[in-house]
């Protein structure tokens, strides 16, 4: 029962949080991959065969005009949508048939287009809920092992404070989710993801509803997550954000990939310009 935690008493260096469970695959292996994913709703095909590979510590931007299928693709990666065809691989393991909560347990984290903080819980509770883990929240565990859980629970609380300090957010710890501003909600969402030490973070338009002066803050936060070894996939409309954070950019239109490369390459691509304007 370890009570001495090196993290608790010391100033938290940027690398500590988030590296706890670095990907076990080698540096060259993609931690998340999609192969020819097809997603359709009713008769409408939203994603028509999209592939992607992201390595640990890599940030991939996903841009494209409205209706291109970016959010649907992200949702399919996360398991919120069922892919009609194709595969999704997490650390080489085929997770296409797995529901979203099982993918989350394998190291996938995500944010949503409309911020998904738990509105009727405090920020601290939001973090605790994510950090308790499957074991911690299980009913049988709560009832049967409640004495030995105390140490684990304290540990999770300490981790939550560490994350709050890292993002300079201790002042919102005891505010209900519904009392937060747009930018703060987004921050809570991201901090919540971190409590699980994810290998992959999927972000769906993270800058929506965030005040301009906070965008720069969030951008640098995302970059530091990338530097910690987390793989990022970012769907964004704000192109400056994409340029800042991404190592690579993929462009989608009408459910397909139409260009891939660095930000500069992609932006000067004729097909891409046509897709946005046409």
């Amino acid at each position, binding site marked *: 029962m370890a009570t001495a935690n090196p993290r608790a008493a010391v100033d938290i260096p940027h690398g500590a949080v988030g590296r706890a469970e670095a990907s076990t695959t080698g540096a060259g292996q993609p931690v998340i991959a999609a192969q020819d994913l097809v997603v359709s*709703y*009713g008769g*409408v095909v939203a994603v028509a065969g999209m592939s992607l590979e992201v390595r640990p510590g890599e940030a991939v931007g996903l841009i494209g005009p409205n209706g291109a299928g970016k959010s649907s693709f992200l949702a399919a990666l996360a398991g919120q*949508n069922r892919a009609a065809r194709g595969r999704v691989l997490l650390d080489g393991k085929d997770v296409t048939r797995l529901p979203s909560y099982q993918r989350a347990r394998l190291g996938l984290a995500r944010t949503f287009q409309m911020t998904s903080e738990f509105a009727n819980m405090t920020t601290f509770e939001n973090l605790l809920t994510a950090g308790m883990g499957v074991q911690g929240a299980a009913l049988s565990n709560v009832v049967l092992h409640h004495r030995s859980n105390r140490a684990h629970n304290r540990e999770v609380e300490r981790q939550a404070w560490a994350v709050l300090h890292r993002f300079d957010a201790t002042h919102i710890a005891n505010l209900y989710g519904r009392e937060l501003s747009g930018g703060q909600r987004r921050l809570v969402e991201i901090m919540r993801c971190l409590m699980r030490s994810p290998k992959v973070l999927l972000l769906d338009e993270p800058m929506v509803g965030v005040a301009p002066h906070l965008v720069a803050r969030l951008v640098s936060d995302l970059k530091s997550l990338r530097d910690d070894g987390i793989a990022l996939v970012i769907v964004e409309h704000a192109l400056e954000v994409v340029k800042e954070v991404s190592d690579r950019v993929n462009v989608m239109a009408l459910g397909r990939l139409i260009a891939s490369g660095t930000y500069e390459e992609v932006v000067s691509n004729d097909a891409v310009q046509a897709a946005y304007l046409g």
Partner: protein
Amino acid sequence: MLGTLASAVAFGVVLASVIAIAAMGFTVQFGLTNVLNLSYGGIMTIGGFAAYLVASHGLSAWYGLPVGAVAGAIVTLIVGRGIFAVYARRGARVFEMMMVTLGLGLVIDYGLQALSRNNIYEFTVLQSRPFSFGPIILTPTQVTIIGVGLALFVGLEGLLRLTKVGKALRAMAANPALARACGIRTRQIVVLTWLLSGALCGLAGVVYIINSQSVGYTTGELFLPLVIAAAILGGAGSPAGAVLASLLMGVVTQVVAAYGGSLYSTAAGFGVLVVVLLSRPSAVLTKQASEELTLA
């Protein structure tokens, strides 16, 4: 053996007509507003009582039909604009709205019980000689009910498909934001929806009591689940779907009643609703799946 089955099917078609009138109204209302209105049965009963009042003053019972329709339309408009819209403005979501309609349903049901002194009143329509089609015997009243149902269906479909107003209604039911952006007068359309669905609701109540020959405060109670089942099974907002589903519900309940007794037939009807609600695939893009309320 076949005779029993044929009779059961025929009665099923009669019952289906009653369900269909109510379900057409419900589906129009639900399809546009997205409110699961559990006081709909109570308003049906109001329509029935209005018709009874007319008949008890000496007029022919069939005059009850327009009276019931008007009563239903007015009450629904008041309820929709004066009650439901208020909660929607305050940010009530779909479940809270349903609970409001449930509370309102209690108020209507037991208010009617209080007003009617808990009595059940006879409501007879003069019968002439029944028609017989082979083993099937139907009274003229029952045949008329089927006729009324058909006429309303044709009228409603005509309104929705051929008139400008009908098209606006369908557009708004499918995508309210887009409809608003296209300049459709959404507030007026909502008013029209309350009036139209309310009229059908009141009419359904009158037809119901004509069929069952009595009216009391419990009239709408056990009937409503069948109506909701038909409306949702047929697809919210689709009168044709509601009619087809009503046929299914009507025939199923009557056949089960013929062979299993009436208590089990009610349970069977309810069972259909449960199965429908559990299995109706909510395609992500439908208005019903979005849980958004359109009341203004």
